[in-house]
């Protein structure tokens, strides 16, 4: 760490708070945080915000936009706006949980194997590379077809299985570089155990990377969930943006002229993913001062 590094205090919460503050100081990231915040709030308060229940199919079929149904109804007679609002739950949930789980796996594997040397490290390096190279979506499709019918849990699992490798690789190489830092050697001299060195000395120094890899994994998870649901490989009975697109495509929303059915969920997915990418601009700045925005040439 450079002398000018303002890393905050030792308390991990404070470290996170610092990270947040740094992210917040980047205008693009601030927009991202605000957007994400809106989505999260919508997801949490969906029952309060949605005019109807998401699965209530007692309305007219394929109705156009009206005062009662701002975005119209689906071919099954459900309110599109309500579905959209409830759908936020799944995407936010999948993004959060799958992002979190794959980040945890990435952290555990990346850190422990980055710290260890020798044969075991080579093996895991190989496995990580394998997972990096095998195209994720085809693998997901094959696994999803195998695991069948597990609903959101299955999708999360599939996304996690295929999504941890990238983060692990980044964290592994960062660990390897931190491992040779003097303060790590110093910790050995202080009699620290390897696990404590990894988790108390090295890990906190990678907060920004971990946060970044969390948002990256979340974005990937949200897009992957939508893709799998769209292909009909998820549980079509859940209400999510992906299944909305699936049903819209299935019932030919374009044919009935209800392009909103396709447009709205897709836009929501894009905006949610965009919010994460925008936040990542701030995270970049966190780890690399050169990337801080605004410095013109």
């Amino acid at each position, binding site marked *: *760490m450079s002398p000018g590094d303002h*890393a905050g205090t030792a308390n991990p919460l404070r*470290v996170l708070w610092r990270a947040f503050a740094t992210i917040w*100081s980047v205008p693009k990231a601030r927009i991202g945080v605000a957007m994400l915040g809106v989505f999260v709030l919508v997801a949490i308060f969906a029952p309060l915000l949605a005019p109807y229940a998401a699965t209530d199919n007692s309305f007219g079929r394929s109705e156009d936009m009206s005062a009662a149904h701002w975005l119209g109804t689906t071919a099954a007679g459900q309110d599109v706006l309500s579905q959209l609002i409830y759908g936020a739950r799944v995407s936010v949930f999948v993004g959060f949980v799958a992002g979190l789980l794959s980040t945890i796996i990435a952290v555990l594997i990346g850190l422990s194997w980055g710290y260890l040397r020798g044969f075991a490290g080579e093996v895991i390096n190989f496995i990580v590379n394998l997972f990096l190279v095998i195209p994720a979506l085809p693998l997901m499709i094959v696994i999803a077809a195998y695991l069948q019918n597990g609903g959101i849990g299955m999708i999360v699992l599939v996304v996690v299985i295929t999504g941890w490798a990238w983060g692990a690789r980044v964290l592994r190489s960062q660990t390897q570089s931190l491992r040779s830092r*003097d*303060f790590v050697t110093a910790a050995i001299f202080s*009699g620290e155990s390897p696990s404590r060195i990894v988790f108390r000395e090295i890990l906190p120094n990678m907060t920004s990377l971990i946060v970044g890899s969390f948002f990256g994994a979340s974005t990937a998870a949200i897009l992957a969930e939508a893709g799998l649901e769209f292909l009909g490989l998820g549980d079509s009975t859940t209400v999510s943006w992906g299944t909305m697109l699936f049903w819209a495509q299935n019932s030919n929303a374009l044919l009935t002229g209800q392009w909103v059915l396709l447009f709205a969920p897709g836009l929501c997915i894009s905006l949610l993913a965009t919010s994460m990418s925008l936040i990542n601009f701030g995270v970049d700045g966190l780890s690399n001062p050169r990337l801080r925005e*605004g*410095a013109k040439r």
Partner: protein
Amino acid sequence: MSLVSVQGLFVVYEPQGALPVPAVRNVSFDLEQGDFVGLVGESGSGKSTLGFALTGLSKPPARVSAGSILFDGVDIAGMTPAQLRVQRHGGFAMVLQSGMNALNPVRSIRDHFFDIFTAHGHVSKRDREARAIELVGKVELPASVLDRFSGELSGGMRQRVSIALALSLEPRLMVFDEPTTALDVLVQHAVMDTIRELQKSEKFTAVLISHDLGMVLEVTERVMVMHDGLVVEDALAAEILAAPQHPYTRMLLSHYGDPRAAVVEVPGLAARGGDRATDVAVAAAGNAPVTVTGDTLDTLEPVAAPAAPPASTVRRREGRAAREAIVVTNVSKIYQRPSRGEEPVCAVNNVSFTLEPGASMALVGASGSGKSTIAKLITGVERPTSGSITFGDLQIDTIKRRQLKRLHTEVQMVFQDPYAALNPLHTVEYILTRPILNFSRLRGRDARARVLELLETVGLTPVEQFAARLPHQLSGGQRQRVVIARALASDPQVIIADEPVSMLDVSLRAGVLALLDSLRETWGVSMLYITHDLLSARLVTDQIMVLNSGAVVEEGRTADVLQNPQDEYTIRLLEAIPHPTVGGLVQS
């Protein structure tokens, strides 16, 4: 008319989301054609910033906020990038501080030259190969380097290449920003010689930026001293040597000494005569402290104040002095290169020595001579390829992971870079508590008491206040003290200090050295002091070992070896040391 005329120059850094930093404040000076001027000052005093401004390289977040820089009568501070570019040929050039990284790793050296020739069109296509060869010849490199990539060159060669590249612009003003910092002492010396020769033969105006007053005085005619963005002194080298005006200059100057002298004296440290063992007197607090106005804790530390805490607060380690010796017998370490097909490196070659209990021994040698490797071998971080190392009943060469902890209770390390050796996220208290919890039975309140005691030992008072700080809230010298305190936490018998002051400003060095020295005295630990700086070796050790390419070429009592070197390598090391007194006087 002067070649360069700087008037009332202000340069500020305006980083995003932070307060602006005035890095250069109201600086004015003139440079004449053919001048060789030194620019000295401690880290962060604004030397590079000024250098960049002089060569029209200031770019955001830096901004010339006021004043003018007239080059040949034209103000370059207000030039557009395109106008500046024209000026680069036959105008001003700069050799960057980190010249090691100034070459594009994916372009060959030849391409670098050709790019410049093409950009300015001053060398025709036909002549450019010959010109490139001529230029590298000027910096004493063979023509074959043109085919190489920077990754294939040593640091010294890279630095020479970047000098040759700057030279290819046929500049009238050349700014050398610390051209030798990252280099080995011997190479440093050689590169400086090259620069001096070039300046004489090519007759360009040169500005040499350095934090090493000794070196600057040795090679330049005129010296400007910067402190906190201000030029505090601007005089001929001889004048500065003879009658330094500013207290800061005086302080810098006072830290020079010749390790070969009969008696070596540096403020804050005990004077060193023939045999150190007889000089047990500890420098007293308040011994010639330097006061500089406008100083802050972070930039300049009172040199000797906390060096030795009053004996009343720190218990002398009566009866706890080091008992065991470290015995190194015929140790070699060969590093297999990770990529096959490359020669293995023999980092340590058949080295034997004994570090007696309570002794202080210096291990000196040029970069890559194997000093750090020996430290790693002794501390069990690496295993020797052959030979044995023992510490009491511990066989360090074959030590098990579980026994490492036992070894580290007794043998501790002080790291070279205090900025890297402290985890930026942990408070001083946490950093010091960990070894206490790991190595002793002290817990809770007792552990904390021990932490405070350690802080007091290394002179970080008020202790409560320092305990709560994070590394970035400490100055370099204070950080190094924390590192030392951590090494002491386990109550070790042996301390290995691997270049403990090489990363510190001159003004901070003496304090840390004094502390180490006094600790050795009060606590009775043995110390292995690793350095390439012979002066400091002379100041804090009794015995010395000179390493060359992994092998010991000379050893003996420090004063003897330095005053009367036998091996040619030792002689060269000694010669490479700048001698401002000698050189400066000769020049004037």
